[in-house]
């Protein structure tokens, strides 16, 4: 077995090295692929806090991914058409500034996660799965019927949004930005796992009745985890929309929710780098298998079945064995 930290380090260095190599070789498409993997990883790092740490199998995390996307789409759309987002109760202008867009994306996601969490956490187990799935569909159909912002066709943004001091149109610079955000989220996630909150959340997943009898509220712990989780996935959504300069209802689709879960499973549930490994593997498979066969989802499905039935720890579990205890 290889120490988990070594696996993590190799993954991180590799994720940085590939686009740098592509830069040297002048292959911008590879940089875009790497950016895609980084953004998916960020979305999954978010979900991992709810799913891995909190045991909340949310099949509706595309809601936050999509909200982040639409936050970017709507703000940038108004900025590029010089129309206000709202004039009442006070004037809200569109913007092309990434930090502002991110903040809006995260706030909107937090609010949505709070409401969805409050409703969904009244239930557990399979009800929770189905209800989060249903909320995802609700947003999906809402986006489709919202003609003002493109309905089914979505919204296109002509120029990528700005970040102070960077030229985001240069692929490697945008990659760097996304990579930095992923690192920040991973760091936060690592601290969270060891914090008092993480300890209590971890226990709430395993034995809620115990958490209750030491005087803590397991539902509130899970709700906070769900909100944090939604915020990070929402940020990833804003980046994803900026990567494609396009946002559409498919960001809300239940397949998207399923894919974010797949990233985690491929890599390893509740492992710090599980989402990163999974997202990288997914994008790699998508690229190479997708190039080989139009029907590459068959192979993805088969791989997934094998992992679920025979290799439950995902790739990190295979390489590094069981998770170590904190000390």
């Amino acid at each position, binding site marked *: 077995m290889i120490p988990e930290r070594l696996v993590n380090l190799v993954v991180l260095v590799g994720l940085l090295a590939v686009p740098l190599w592509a830069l040297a070789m002048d292959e911008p498409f590879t940089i875009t692929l790497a950016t895609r993997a980084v953004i998916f990883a960020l979305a999954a790092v978010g979900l991992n806090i709810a799913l891995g740490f909190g045991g909340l199998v949310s099949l509706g995390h595309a809601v936050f991914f999509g909200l982040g996307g639409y936050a970017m789409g709507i703000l940038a759309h108004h900025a590029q058409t010089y129309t206000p987002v709202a004039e009442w109760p006070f004037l809200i202008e569109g913007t092309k500034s990434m930090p502002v867009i991110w903040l809006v994306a995260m706030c909107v996601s937090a609010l949505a996660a709070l409401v969805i969490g409050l409703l969904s956490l009244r239930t557990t187990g399979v009800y929770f799965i189905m209800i989060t799935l249903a909320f995802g569909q609700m947003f999906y159909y809402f986006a489709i019927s919202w003609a003002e912002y493109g309905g089914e066709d979505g919204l296109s943004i002509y120029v990528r949004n700005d970040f102070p001091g960077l030229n985001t149109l240069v692929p490697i610079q945008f990659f760097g930005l996304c990579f930095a955000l992923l690192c920040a989220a991973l760091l*936060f996630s690592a*601290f969270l796992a060891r*914090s008092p*909150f993480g300890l209590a959340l971890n*226990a709430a997943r*395993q034995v809620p009745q115990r958490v209750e*009898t*030491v005087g*803590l509220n397991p539902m509130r712990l899970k709700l*906070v985890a769900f909100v944090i989780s939604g915020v990070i996935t929402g940020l990833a959504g804003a980046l994803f929309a900026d990567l494609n300069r396009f946002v559409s209802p498919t960001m809300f689709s239940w397949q998207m929710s399923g894919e974010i879960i797949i990233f985690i499973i491929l890599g390893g549930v509740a492992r710090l780098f599980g989402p990163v490994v999974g997202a990288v593997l997914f994008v790699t498979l998508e690229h190479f298998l997708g190039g080989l066969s139009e029907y590459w989802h068959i192979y993805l499905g088969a791989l997934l079945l094998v992992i679920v039935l025979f290799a439950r720890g995902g790739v990190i579990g295979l390489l590094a064995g069981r998770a170590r205890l904190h000390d």
Partner: protein
Amino acid sequence: MTDAVLTTTGLSKSFGALKATDDVSIDLRPGEIHAVIGPNGAGKSTLIAQICGGLVPDSGRVTLLGRDVTQAPARLRAQAGLARTFQISALAMEDSVLQNAMLGVLGATGRPWSFLRPALGRRDLREAAENALERVGLAEARAMRTAELSHGQRRQLEVAVALTLNPRAFVMDEPMAGLGAEGSKRLTSFLDGLRSEAPILLVEHDMDAVFALADRVSVLVYGRVIETGTVAQIRASQAVRDAYLGDPA
């Protein structure tokens, strides 16, 4: 008579036609061990659930330190000073022994809302947890994964988590179950000393332990308390003998 720490008054709970708890009034006074015994199916678990939260009685009241907590959820009773141990160990099996004890300490502080500093790096919290483990004799095992503990060690950890809460009253649901003769003896002497810190409502099958420890014993049969008294009184009671002790089962 000193004021009771924990009182139930006329507690009743039915499931359909079955009266699981029938007009139960017992109390727990400072410094005592009050044992509740009874044959299987006497309604001990239902009674505990109503005392500790999780099951709301049909009628009657539960009072903790003068506060009516009949309707309160388990966590509010815990915050008010009630610590319980489970009959079947309810521990975070994937976590270390120390982490389980830390959970109790976090509960006692009431503030788990810290997201960045490592929990195990907080010396104040850690010392409280280690102290509790030390007292039940688990100091050596603190870095072990809870799932790897023996059955007896898990029982000890249950008690340690309860200790971390610095409670005003303990409710222990068969802490001796499956401990073996040696383990029971050790826990018996530990509980003997613990009663001066906070009184213990002890639900137990192990009669040797009950008779060795209890200041008072209540006998529960078919949901009713048929007798409450000292060990000597219970031993002498004809009603108890008929209903319970005489029963070869």
